[in-house]
């Protein structure tokens, strides 16, 4: 593109190379999966009881403690001294919720490192 601006100075402006734009960043899964880094913990699912929800044994469970649990949230809570998973509305009112599950990660193949 070639034009003269109002000062009478000619400007050559090609299509900008996006690769030189330092603000450009590749997609980062952290920004998708974790909103609050300080209050988010990762856990590992054991057993296939929750297959029906698409959560399998070995999956990573992402838990954010800073979210106020709503009735339809999946939550981690403590039962018989162990962490377990349920919908909030099924958890006994008197039981403290440990954190709200925001996502799970199921890997079909382990990443090669």
């Amino acid at each position, binding site marked *: 593109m070639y034009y003269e601006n109002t000062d009478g100075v000619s400007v050559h402006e090609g299509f900008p190379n996006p690769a030189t734009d330092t603000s450009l960043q590749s997609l980062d899964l952290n920004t998708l999966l974790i909103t*609050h*880094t*300080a*209050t988010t*913990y*990762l*856990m*590992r*699912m*054991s*057993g*296939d*009881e*929750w297959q029906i929800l698409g959560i399998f044994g070995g999956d*990573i*469970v992402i838990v954010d*403690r*800073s979210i106020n649990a709503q009735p339809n949230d999946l939550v*981690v809570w*403590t*039962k018989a*001294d*162990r*962490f*377990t*998973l349920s919908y909030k509305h099924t958890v006994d009112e008197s039981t403290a919720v*440990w954190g709200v599950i925001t996502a799970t990660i199921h890997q079909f193949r382990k990443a090669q490192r």
Partner: protein
Amino acid sequence: MRQPIFALIDCNNFFVSCERLFRPDLENKPVVVMSSGDGCVVARSNEAKALGIPMGAPVYKWRQFFKDNRVVQFSGNFELYGDISRRITDVLASVTPQIEVYSVDESFLGLSELKIDDYRAWGRAVRDKIWQWIGIPVSVGVAPTKTLAKLAANHAKVHPALNSVLSLSPLPPQPERQRERFILSHSTAKNRVRIFPSDSVKGLSFHAWLRATPVQEVWGVGWRLAPRLQAEGVHDALQLSQLRPQHAQQLMGIHGRQLVAELNGLSCYPLEREGKAQKSIARTRTFGEDTGDIGSLEAALASFAAKAAFRLRVDHQLARRAGVFATTNKHKPGYQVWRRETYFPVPTADTGKLIASVVDLFHKFYNPHVKYHRAGVWLQDFVPVDHLQTDVFGSVNVAAEGRSKARMQTLDSINERFGRGKIRYAAEALGNKWEPKHRLRSPRYVTRWNELPVVHTLK
């Protein structure tokens, strides 16, 4: 200028609280965390304190007691504690950028820029936030000086009625006669600040509590100054606050004068915002078993030197002095301590150079018939990397220093990429005897993919 006001956020039994976060079954049980090498107790749950286990208790003496009283023991899981500490700092920094991270479990906040009507309510909100968001119980002390904030947090921690929060707010000049008025100030202080506790514990006012606080528990007094004060008849925090400023200065220098002013509500210690560049770095350890084996000892010292050197390079510093110490078991007869140090005309952060010096120093006192219990390496007398000065003879070999620096950068970047300790100097890799026993360490829940906490199914 606004009246300064500070909060101290102090984690309760921090290491134990970190362990409990992922072990709900440990609630209400006595728990202790041991130093690396399982040498002594470094953190106790309230239940463990109630059993009379003192801080620093040597583990080998207490083993039977732990067993008899079902005390749950952990080897220190310092990756876990470090990560949780960072999370707490992040949350506090979102409250205000005026933060001084004082230690792994304590931070001061500067509150004078914040609009807060009720400091007690504010403290409770912070306490609840850290508890809900991170899962760690904290105590909060609010006061016009850092020294008082620290005392207030301690007070709040030990008196359940305060619910972990105590505010000593400075109030406007007109005294409200109805409230418990509390003036720490000695009558000589001109612009004294009147301080009003937000709560008083039944039967123990803050005033009385100060009287019950031994002088060595006041922040900045410690074991070194305490005897001097006690010799002058100053045994508790209240007496210290009533010391005449001149007298305090005679006893403790300018620091003493400031300390007394701080106790009277006049702030002398500002928030230290910059990450403090360390004045010395030490890496020490109690061995898994006492040893006289030269190979194991050299390996241990080399590893300490390498770790200290790494830290030095992270801080962009060079050291002029390095030292070694070793001791036999303090609790066995014939306890002995050895120390040697050396001076580098050209300051260095080179792992190879430091390992060589440290091993040399050790050989100056090494005796194969001695069973060493504990050893360590320290580095001191730092200069910033950018200010590499020549010694008086100008004998810096610039080319060699350049090569050394490049080598260190390679080593550090490889270790960063593949995990600490992947590349080591040969001396470091010699023995394993000295490596701490991690037998009782909990999983590194937040720093290792294969050690995450597990969500169980109900069936």
